[in-house]
């Protein structure tokens, strides 16, 4: 067989394989119940770490042990972590009712954590002198911000305890 003939055959085989894959491919994102549970737990641990980091940041800022710039950066980083946790849960395809329920609860807890962390960032901005509208529900002081974070943390811990 000539080199050109071999290349044509290889090309035809490749195209045939791609067509088969495209037309007969299955959904690979569905997980086993154990895998889904572990994924929910992993996302909740990520969210828990973000909330604890934010709590520590707000406390240190309130004690004048941290600059506003560092506090803002630290909390912004944690909002990114919470977005990752949320993405991990929203892209999960639960295989059974238990996993679906765990994912729904996890999404609620991560949403609550995100709201608390976003509010803490608004508090940091106001503390640094930014003029913010009250419509954003900015916590009045550090303890109010920490209370919101504690509530979010308890919700996550409760779910992690169930797992």
């Amino acid at each position: 067989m000539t080199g050109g003939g071999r290349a044509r055959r290889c090309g035809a085989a490749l195209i045939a394989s791609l067509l088969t894959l495209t037309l007969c491919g299955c959904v690979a994102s569905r997980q086993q119940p154990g895998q889904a549970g572990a994924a929910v737990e992993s996302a909740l641990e990520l969210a828990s770490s973000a909330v604890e980091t934010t709590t520590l940041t707000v406390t240190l800022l309130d004690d004048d042990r941290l600059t506003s710039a560092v506090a803002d950066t630290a909390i912004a980083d944690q909002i990114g972590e919470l977005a990752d946790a949320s993405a991990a849960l929203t892209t999960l395809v639960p295989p059974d009712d238990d996993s679906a329920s765990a994912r729904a609860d996890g999404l609620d807890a991560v949403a609550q954590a995100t709201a608390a962390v976003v509010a803490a960032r608004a508090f940091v901005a106001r503390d640094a002198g930014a003029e913010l509208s009250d419509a954003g529900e900015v916590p009045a002081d550090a303890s109010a911000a920490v209370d919101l974070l504690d509530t979010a943390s308890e919700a996550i811990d409760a779910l992690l305890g169930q797992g």
Partner: protein
Amino acid sequence: MKKLLGLALGILTAIGGFVDIGDLVTNAVVGSRFGLSLVWVVAVGVVGICLFAEMSGRVAAVSGRATFEIIRERLGPRAAGANLAASFAINLLTLTAEIGGIALALHLASSIEPRLWIPVAALAVWLVLWRVKFSIMENVVGLLGLLLIGFAVALFLLGPDWGELAAQVARPSLPEGEHAASYWFYAVALFGAAMTPYEVFFFSSGAVEERWTRKDLSQNRLNVLTGFPLGGLLSVAIAGCAAVVLMPRGIEVSSLSQIVLPVAQAGGTLLMAVVIVGIVAATFGAALETALSSGYTLAQYFGWSWGKFRRTVRAARFHLSMIVALLLGVGILMTSVDPIAVTEMSVVFSAVALPLTYVPILVVANDPEYMGDHVNGRVANGLGSVYLVIVLLAAVAAIPLMIATGAGS
């Protein structure tokens, strides 16, 4: 007196220059997840880097030539080419991580988007490489990097239970909820971070830049054997701060901003500012070293004229390769890739490339044709052989562990 000052300066710059973004991130991640139970890896890594940095410095001082020049001559273009490909790729990844580290540290201090800092950081690195004398560059960033000693001060100010910390060091065990595979993945990453290949290329080429001779062998030994272990203690202090403040709260380090929180808790804004300046200096210094190492390895392999001791126009290709490496690093970072993820990748792939870097150094350091009566002694060869086994194990295990653990997650 002048000689004593020179010795002290050499040791201080070795301490300040030891820690880079890979050490910072990996030690903090490990401290927050495993406490001090992986300190033994830092110790193993520090002994290894001391051993091979001393060898490469000795090769340069005795032969008057940098390691890479001799590797090509001694092992031939093919073996040296494989070494070059691996070293250059890891160097580029590390350089990218260091530029990202500078940008993240400046972001931390200013709250300004890191992507705006990336070109500024790269431009500053290039300007220093272009204009500043080698010795001034090395001493200034090394001494400013010493500000990372703030982590050790913070650890003392935190007043931890020293008995508990000592127990974690002496009896390493897996914390609850952690998997053994993750433990070993981070062990390999820490080892890779401590023994990053660019350090030996920079060390041996730096010896040529500073025109070391046989008379400088004792200074070489003193710098390495005192400076690097003390630098290793800084790494342990970073892990210690994370272990004392972050681990009990269940905080897993995923960003540079979390690394300074224990320092702020211990010493307030002043100590935190000192440490942030130290982080900028350490990452800036490492960016200079990795950019230089990129130029050194290419120029030494292809036989181009190289070195900062030459006028720029006399080493044009050497300077051009550093500019290209910097531009590639900036290009990678501007794709919005997470610099911390790049750092984690760089230390793991450093571990993979370790044998290609360290085997040739051991071969050259044993060649009487280059080394005369300064070939390795029995202790250096014995330890070198043990380290080759460790390095091979780390290299083989790195990728499977990374896949099995999802990069330690």
